[in-house]
């Protein structure tokens, strides 16, 4: 059984690598397949440098109460970086709050894109699936380009895609946990279950996690804490960029299957016979 599952993971099967040369979400194309979260950076200066190092073209922002004493403008930094904004609904626990937050974000940032988060549990920050579906349906009906943060559940992902979500963003493990991809089989299944882009979101801890996501067939990776809270965020941004590119290349190249025993890479033909030691 374990071998059969490994074999499934080890090959791309008959499916082409999804998405072609560029990432395309709702008709918008991006050359970078790394989405960047802006939370947790020690300063706006480091954030700006990390965006540049990551090559990311799409970054998330949250919506919070105006702080009259805030230093520097996040909006200005992101405008200077030339990136597109992906507002999130972080902190929302109900479909109602998430829908209202998305509408406010549309008003504030003049974008109908939204990374939809509806959280169901304070300790794990795991999505609340029923509320997520309700909010996604309302926002799609309202003309939003909806990218839902979802559980690593292929059935839920398919439901979200069927509703009309522009992509699905399954978690590798809980937000900010750095635990990597705890159920790679499900991520592969999600890639097979939907026709929209799959963006691995949450749980990425280091570059190899991002590479694995791409090897599993994800179309893009979202990294936030892994970069922002690294000891050297700018260097980690560069590492993530390289990892996403490497994983994408490896996926396209088609890895060898895992085998229990060795397979010689040097042929036996022409092997000399030296005779017995006398």
């Amino acid at each position, binding site marked *: 059984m374990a071998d059969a599952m490994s074999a499934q993971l080890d090959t791309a099967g008959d499916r082409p690598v999804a998405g072609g040369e560029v990432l395309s979400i709702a008709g918008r194309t991006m050359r970078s397949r790394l989405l960047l*979260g*802006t*939370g*947790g*950076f020690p300063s706006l200066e480091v*954030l700006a440098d990390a965006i540049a190092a990551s090559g990311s073209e799409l970054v*998330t*922002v*949250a*919506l*919070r*109460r*105006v702080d*009259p004493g805030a230093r520097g*403008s*996040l*909006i200005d930094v*992101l405008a200077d970086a030339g990136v597109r*904004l*992906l*507002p*999130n609904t*972080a902190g929302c626990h109900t479909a109602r709050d998430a829908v*209202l937050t998305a*509408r*406010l*974000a549309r*008003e*504030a*940032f003049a974008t109908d894109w939204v*990374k939809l*988060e509806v959280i169901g549990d304070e300790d794990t920050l795991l999505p609340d699936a029923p509320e997520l579906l309700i909010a996604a349906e309302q926002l799609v009906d309202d003309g939003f380009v909806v990218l839902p943060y979802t559980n690593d559940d292929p059935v839920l992902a398919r439901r979200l895609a069927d509703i009309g979500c522009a992509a699905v963003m399954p978690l590798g493990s809980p937000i900010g946990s750095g635990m990597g991809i705890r159920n790679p089989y499900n991520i592969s299944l999600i890639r097979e279950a939907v026709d929209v882009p799959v963006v691995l979101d949450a749980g990425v801890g280091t570059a190899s996690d991002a590479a694995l996501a791409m090897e599993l067939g994800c179309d893009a990776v979202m990294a*936030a804490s892994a970069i922002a809270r690294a000891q050297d965020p700018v260097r980690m941004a560069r590492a993530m960029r390289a990892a996403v590119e490497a994983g994408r290349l490896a996926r396209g190249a088609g890895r060898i299957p895992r085998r229990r025993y060795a397979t010689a890479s040097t042929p036996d033909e022409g092997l000399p016979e030296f005779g017995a030691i006398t």
Partner: protein
Amino acid sequence: MILLNGQSSDVRAGESVTAALIRLGLDVDARGVAVAVDGEVVPRAVWDSFALGDGARVEVLTAMQGG
């Protein structure tokens, strides 16, 4: 009394959303700002004309690092 971002304010009933924004030190043409009053979006186009009712809960929001 108007509740502005969760705190009591000297904004009076009948004043506009724009008046509330000015209390927070914002320009009316500030980028990246959105307003909700009593849980409903108030579009920028009507900030000047939208009169706040007594006891209104005004949320003035902007971009924060997140996600």
